[in-house]
């Protein structure tokens, strides 16, 4: 047997919770062609979880998997994917992944594992102890019913402060589809907490003293790492600062690069001033302040520092200290978060007394972070909050909650934009209490199934930003025209793809973006300015394909798709170019198995196509175009009646989108009518076993045998 290539830890841990048996497999022998991460997850689901398996059935599996680059000094390499039959996918649960950062990925690698496959169901609550080669299931009776904070503390007391704990809170224990798994305080994987709860698994504690072997020359490795650092921007790979700077020709007030010299982390002790060059490699951590980006100026004085995943210099989580929330609400004064989770609290309020960046907003966000990440509640990318508002405004809550329950909810606080409202609402959801608490935790499927609301009403309302199958848009036409729409059709939850939006929002002027686009995707016409959309062309399809494949690749390698790909950079001396081959260069050096960009992208395509196959198999249908790759009505409408392809309109055109899907399918080698991969497409990617199985079920285009005779 060949020795394990570098990068891989080498083993996959399999835990049968029904029997308590644990075993290991060789990662490379079984999974090298799907790399790791989501690829490994999809392969397990294909091979071992039959169609029709429901999320909370013991037969469902939960696959925590990281990738080859996790645990190394590759910037932005701290990610774990958690793949399963996804609970909030409506009306029929299909394959989906949650994603989390923090310390988990690195710790798992140091313990000697690339992935953990959780099977079956334990009879009683347990937690999984992993320390290097030692794996045990330990009793979790004393942890069950408690939040993630306490579970993490008690497991850390048993294992040591340097362990990493990934745990569910009450929401996951009670099988809420909108439940998370959380590690390292604020790093939450959406949607998968209930599956863990259904298996009676409270937490995984992992600790390891091992390391990741890098096969290639360490000098070369060090140079590539330094090169990667040199082309980094700030969060979401925004490559120009938000402020005019002596050190940059361009700036963008909307950039996430907000760390201007002169600003300070006001709640550090003593405060830390931002000084020096914004290009300094020793000051990358000062560029991003997510709290300041979302909550405005006042966040700076409450900023303790940045935080985030192992190895990442960006620190997109902000640690905030707000003494007022301790006094007013009886919660701790310190919390951290980023992005949608940072905004969990304030998004419940249609209005706040001093606006979206006022004091109430700040306090609501603190409460949201503290409570949601302890009870392990997922916002479904803000759909939870939007649904709550709409259900109230449409009178549904008044109609459907009993009179007593409705009266017990402090609506006056909500109307007043009083953050204290969250002290009532959030535990209802986390503990699944009452009709409201239960239904909200179901996801959009709750109102649809239990309250008889038609999906069409959500699809018609721009304000919901509802997309399909129980989930919202995630960087669609409002950001990126047809490219964004194509991307949003492809998954069974919100797309979680940022490859495209990181580029279009990077802050460079349009002419620079178009020049780079020409080099990367073959034509400047692959990119439009937002709201200046032009009719579909094959270059946009190529960019959409690139975005999807790279996202999948990042999810397989342990890389962060909220930062990568790194195709643009802040460096004027490079013409603002990044490097479109960075992933393959790192992969080759780490593993010792040379793969060029096309080679690694092909692996990404293999993984993405396997996801497609799983979706087709589990839907029992091959007409993806009609049944799966849907676009909600509101995308084709404009509230003011503006026409598609006019300046300032994000409205798309049906015929144009049909053409877009044609071009995308053609590029993927999928059947034009159905959007289903052909036998040839599967075979080309080394998925012939998959193609054969689907063909036998009539799920491949071109007749029962897929036209292969």
């Amino acid at each position, binding site marked *: 047997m060949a020795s394990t290539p570098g990068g891989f830890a080498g083993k996959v841990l399999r835990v049968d919770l029904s029997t308590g048996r644990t075993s290991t497999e060789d990662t490379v022998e079984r999974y090298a062609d799907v790399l790791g991460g989501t690829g490994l997850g999809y392969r397990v689901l294909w091979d071992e979880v039959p169609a029709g398996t429901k999320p909370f059935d013991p037969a469902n599996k939960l696959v925590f998997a990281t990738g080859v680059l996790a*645990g190394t000094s590759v910037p932005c390499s701290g990610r774990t994917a958690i793949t399963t039959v996804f609970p909030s996918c409506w009306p029929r649960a299909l394959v989906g992944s949650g994603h989390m950062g923090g310390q988990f990925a690195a710790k798992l690698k140091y313990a000697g594992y690339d992935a953990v496959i959780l099977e079956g169901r334990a009879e009683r609550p347990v937690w999984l102890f992993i320390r290097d080669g030692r794996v045990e299931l330990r009793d979790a009776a004393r942890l069950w019913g408690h939040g993630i904070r306490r579970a993490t503390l008690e497991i850390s*007391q048993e294992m040591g*402060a*340097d362990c990493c704990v990934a745990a569910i809170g009450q929401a996951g224990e009670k099988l809420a589809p909108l439940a998370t798994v959380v590690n390292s305080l604020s790093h939450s994987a959406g949607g998968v907490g209930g599956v863990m709860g259904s298996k009676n698994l409270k937490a995984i504690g992992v600790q390891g003293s091992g390391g990741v072997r*890098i096969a290639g020359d360490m000098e070369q490795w060090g140079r590539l790492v330094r090169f990667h650092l040199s082309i980094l921007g700030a969060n979401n790979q925004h490559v120009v600062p938000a402020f005019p700077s002596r050190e940059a020709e361009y700036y963008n007030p909307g950039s996430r690069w907000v760390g201007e010299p002169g600003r300070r982390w006001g709640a550090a002790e003593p405060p830390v001033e931002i000084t020096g060059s914004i290009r300094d490699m*020793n000051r990358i951590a000062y560029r991003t302040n997510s709290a300041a980006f979302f909550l405005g100026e006042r966040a700076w004085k409450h900023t303790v520092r*940045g935080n985030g995943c*192992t190895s990442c210099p960006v620190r997109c989580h902000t640690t905030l200290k707000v003494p007022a929330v301790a006094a007013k609400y009886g919660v701790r004064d310190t919390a951290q978060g980023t992005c949608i989770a940072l905004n969990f609290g304030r998004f419940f309020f249609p209005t706040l007394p001093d606006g979206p960046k006022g004091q109430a907003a700040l306090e609501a966000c603190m409460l949201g972070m503290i409570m949601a990440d302890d009870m392990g509640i997922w916002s479904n990318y803000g759909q939870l909050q939007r649904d709550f508002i709409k259900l109230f405004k449409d009178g549904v809550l008044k109609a459907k909650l009993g009179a007593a329950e409705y009266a017990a909810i402090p609506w006056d606080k909500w109307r007043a934009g009083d953050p204290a409202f969250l002290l009532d609402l959030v535990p209802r959801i986390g503990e699944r209490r009452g009709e409201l608490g239960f239904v909200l935790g179901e996801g959009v499927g709750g109102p649809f199934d239990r309250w008889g609301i038609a999906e069409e009403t959500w699809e018609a309302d721009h304000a919901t930003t509802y997309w399909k199958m129980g989930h919202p848009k995630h960087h669609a036409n409002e950001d990126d025209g047809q490219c964004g729409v194509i991307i949003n059709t492809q998954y069974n939850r919100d797309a979680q793809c940022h490859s495209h939006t990181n580029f279009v929002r990077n802050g460079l002027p349009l002419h620079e973006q178009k020049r780079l686009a020409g080099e990367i995707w073959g034509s400047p016409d692959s990119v439009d300015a937002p709201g200046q959309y032009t009719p579909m062309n094959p270059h946009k399809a190529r960019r959409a394909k690139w975005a999807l494949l790279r996202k999948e690749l990042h999810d397989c390698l342990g890389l962060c798709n909220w930062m990568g790909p790194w195709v643009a950079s802040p460096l004027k001396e490079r013409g603002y170019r990044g490097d479109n081959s960075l992933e393959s260069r790192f992969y080759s050096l780490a593993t010792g198995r040379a793969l060029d960009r096309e080679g690694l992208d092909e692996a990404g395509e293999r993984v993405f196509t396997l996801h497609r196959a799983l979706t087709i198999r589990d839907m029992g249908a091959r007409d993806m175009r009609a049944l799966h790759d849907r676009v909600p009505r509101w995308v084709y409408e404009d509230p003011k009646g503006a026409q598609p392809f006019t300046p300032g309109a994000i409205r798309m055109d049906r015929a144009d989108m049909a053409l877009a899907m044609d071009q995308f399918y053609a590029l993927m080698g999928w059947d034009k009518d159905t959007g289903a991969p052909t036998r040839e497409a599967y075979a080309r990617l080394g998925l012939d076993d998959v193609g054969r199985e689907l063909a036998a079920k009539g799920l491949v285009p071109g007749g029962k045998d897929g036209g292969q005779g």
Partner: protein
Amino acid sequence: MKHGKHPPVPDFVAQAAQAAGLETELSRRGFLFLSAGAVASVAALGLCDALAAGRKKAGPPLVILDNARGVLLADPARCVGCLRCELACSEHNDGRAQPSLSRIKVSRALAYGLEGPGQGRHGAWGDGLVVQGVCRQCPHPVPCATACPQNAIVLDPDTGARVVDDAACIGCRLCQRACPWGMLVFDEARQKSSKCFLCHGRPKCVEACPAAALRFVPWRDLTREGPAPLATLSVTPGATACVDCHAPALKAPRPKTTR
């Protein structure tokens, strides 16, 4: 010195006891700090022989008197917990990404601070502060160097840093036990100790830190500041213990004046 019921006292133990002025204790009570059982197991490990052999090889104990010329300073308020310092140290110096080998220690304080889970205020679950562990490059007497029976901790010629001579290290771990701040690293795979040696004057951790939380500055004595969290094992092997500390004063004391 022989004792009826116990195995013979090894020479170096007797000599150490004598140098410390404790030979009467030894004769009365048997071994001072090695119980019979411990000696048996130590003998079984071959450690006694190794120590004895090493002692013969290493000659008189190496006493480091010179101070290092530089030292690392870490600012906890700037630490963002990314662990790039630990990764840089192990990747550069051990050729693999393995923070457990890192000679700068941050992982251990990341979540709950140095006090541990539920015990203190710091770390990500507390007030957010991460207290980095850096080697103080102790002045004389250097605890790790003094503890080493092989004289395997020596001076780096570039920086004066105290550095483990890899070839000489026999993996006895006494240096780990001796460091008041727990800064020694033990590579289980290679069975060798290691410590911060300031990367020949260009510390990799300082280069790697994205928050400028680490500095490399001219050396000063940091050993008197801040609590030393660990009890240390005081070990002085070797026939002639440190003569400077244990010898009587060489000069007559100056008489007290009454004015």
